[in-house]
């Protein structure tokens, strides 16, 4: 059976900020869904399926996704679903739902706040409860062990990682939806102490609050989803070659490859993970990486992946023949999604 052509008809985000205290869940969702529908030129009544991504541990309250629905105007009752994951996986569910053929428009959003509690502690709780979580290992320590493997195998250097950080934060400062970052030159950054050797503060993601929303539509124009796929690797970091991401490579192949792609938005919270993804996806120097500043410059939990797909769609709207959006989940790039968008 031929797949139905699905387009990104609309995209909106709240600016990623260190603190969005003034917004509750419903208010975040109300604003981004209204803006994304306006961007698509559609009404709420046009939406046939709604799917969201969020995490109760991040928001600090049970059923926070159910409260967020108050922002939708869900009356009369709507068809709705939720994933306890980044909104990128909600987008995947909506893409599959649109293939059923009975509805043509899907509304997808993700929301999250880093400011309420400790996203690091939540990431520790996401680990295997038998052999990893009882050790209390923090995500920065995990990423540092991955970065050391990468450096000691000659794939990168601490100086190259500092340059990645500088580029991301410079680009982030040009993006009104990323928080302001102090810019420093790479040499100065290398004088900073390690947070988790060999990673320094500039190698870590800037954790933010935010929300984003994508409107998918069958037909009707806008960047077309040429291919989308997600693949997962073993959870245990010690079972995988951490200097690459086998599942990212396979997901790209399953999504039909990166032919014609000139912009890639990669969900790489740590500088070292950008190096791994560029290699795993075989992206050449002709591909612009993370013009938005990426998830390194604005890492909102449950949002940064969906925003990568939205930013890739904006790149296509702005003239790129094709762009790639990537989202990740799980420790050390365990689970990866690739969404390749192209101009009609």
């Amino acid at each position: 059976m031929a797949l139905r052509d699905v387009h990104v008809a609309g995209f909106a985000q709240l600016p990623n900020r260190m603190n969005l205290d003034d917004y509750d869940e419903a208010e975040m969702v109300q604003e981004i869904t209204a803006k994304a529908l306006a961007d698509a030129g559609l009404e709420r009544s046009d939406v046939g399926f709604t799917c969201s991504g969020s995490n109760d541990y991040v928001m600090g309250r049970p059923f926070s996704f159910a409260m967020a629905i108050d922002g939708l105007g869900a009356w009369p009752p709507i068809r709705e679903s939720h994933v306890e994951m980044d909104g990128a996986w909600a987008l995947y569910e909506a893409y599959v739902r649109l293939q059923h053929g009975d509805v043509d428009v899907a509304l997808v959003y993700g929301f999250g706040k880093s400011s309420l509690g400790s996203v690091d502690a939540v990431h520790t709780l996401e680990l295997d409860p038998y052999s990893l979580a009882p050790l209390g290992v923090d995500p920065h320590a995990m990423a540092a062990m991955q970065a050391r493997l990468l450096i000691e195998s000659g794939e990168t250097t601490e100086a190259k990682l500092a340059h990645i950080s500088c580029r991301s934060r410079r680009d982030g400062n040009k993006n009104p939806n990323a928080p302001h970052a102090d810019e420093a030159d790479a040499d100065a950054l290398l004088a900073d102490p390690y947070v988790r050797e060999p990673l320094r503060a500039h190698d870590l993601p800037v954790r933010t609050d935010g929300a984003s929303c994508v409107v998918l539509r069958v037909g009707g124009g806008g960047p077309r989803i040429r291919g989308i796929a997600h693949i997962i690797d073993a959870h245990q970091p010690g079972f995988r070659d951490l200097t690459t991401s086998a599942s990212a490579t396979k997901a790209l192949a399953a999504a039909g490859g990166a032919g014609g792609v000139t912009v890639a938005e990669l969900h790489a919270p740590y500088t070292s993970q950008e190096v791994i993804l560029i290699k795993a996806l075989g992206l050449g120097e002709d591909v612009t990486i993370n013009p938005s500043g990426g998830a390194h410059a604005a890492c909102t939990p449950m949002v940064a992946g969906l925003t990568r797909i939205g930013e890739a769609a904006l790149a296509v709207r702005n003239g790129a023949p094709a762009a790639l959006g990537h989202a990740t989940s799980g420790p050390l790039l365990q689970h990866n999604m690739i969404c390749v968008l192209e101009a009609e």
Partner: protein
Amino acid sequence: MGADVELVSPFVLEYAYKRSTGPVIGRFLTSLRDGRIEGVRTAAGRVLCPPVEYDPDTGEDVQDFVEVGPCATVLTWTWIDAPLRDHPVQVPFAFALVQLEGADTSMLHAVCAPREDMATGMRVRAVFRDERVGSITDIAHFEIDTGVSKDLVPNEATEPITRFKAPTRLEYVVAAGATTAEFLRGVLRRELIGRRCPSCEKIYLPPRGSCPTCGVRTTELVPMAQKGTVTTFSVIRIPFEGQVLEPPYAAAHVLLDGGDTPLLHIVGDVDVDLVRMGMRVEAVWAEQLEPTLASVRYFRPIDEPDVPYAEIRGHV
């Protein structure tokens, strides 16, 4: 307290989980309690440690158990200068991926060694705790292998491990948000302020920033009457953890006059057996006001005729 009061509150989320182990993890944890480390062999002959129930490459069940270690090689590591509360070691140490002798995969654990001795490829040895309960932390840490192992304190327990306690605790600082903060500042002035939806004109109390029916921002602030009607209620007669009031007492939905959404609160100053649907009540304020709805101590009956059910049926 005035308008500049900071409306943030600490919040702790705790779950007293117990986890079952299943046969493979259970045997692994049992081996740790007994002072040994076991891996599992896959059909392809790979030895996985820590064990999992299936081969991650093929999805097939794993085969037999194989003792591995206690010596291991460090494959990668990072240094922890200032251990966090949940870290397994409370002095400076390294987290490392260590490949146990006889295993084809590596395991994450702590290595205690001087910083200057830490190096990829170094040989380490598992150090078991004296008191072991069937946990990954029965291995206290790894240390530099000197070829000599510490004597193992024997364990009396013989029952296989099938479950263990895995409590979780997360700490937050929750801000009220603009809409709720505005409401709570009103409470500090003994006012109950709702918000009206510009589309359906319903008044929400407690206020909502967005109308759940229409999906638009609510904009208009509406100071509410402090009299209302009990639309439904329940008498609480049994004690429970965290209870503030002495049972028996009545929890009720109170629809304030002119409002559209009932407020969940307490009915007091009355024998609980006399509380009824349609009863007219008014707010009784605490003497010391705080920015929470507890500043209204309860609603008490007033001498007005009951409201017929037909007038409150949409609000129970």
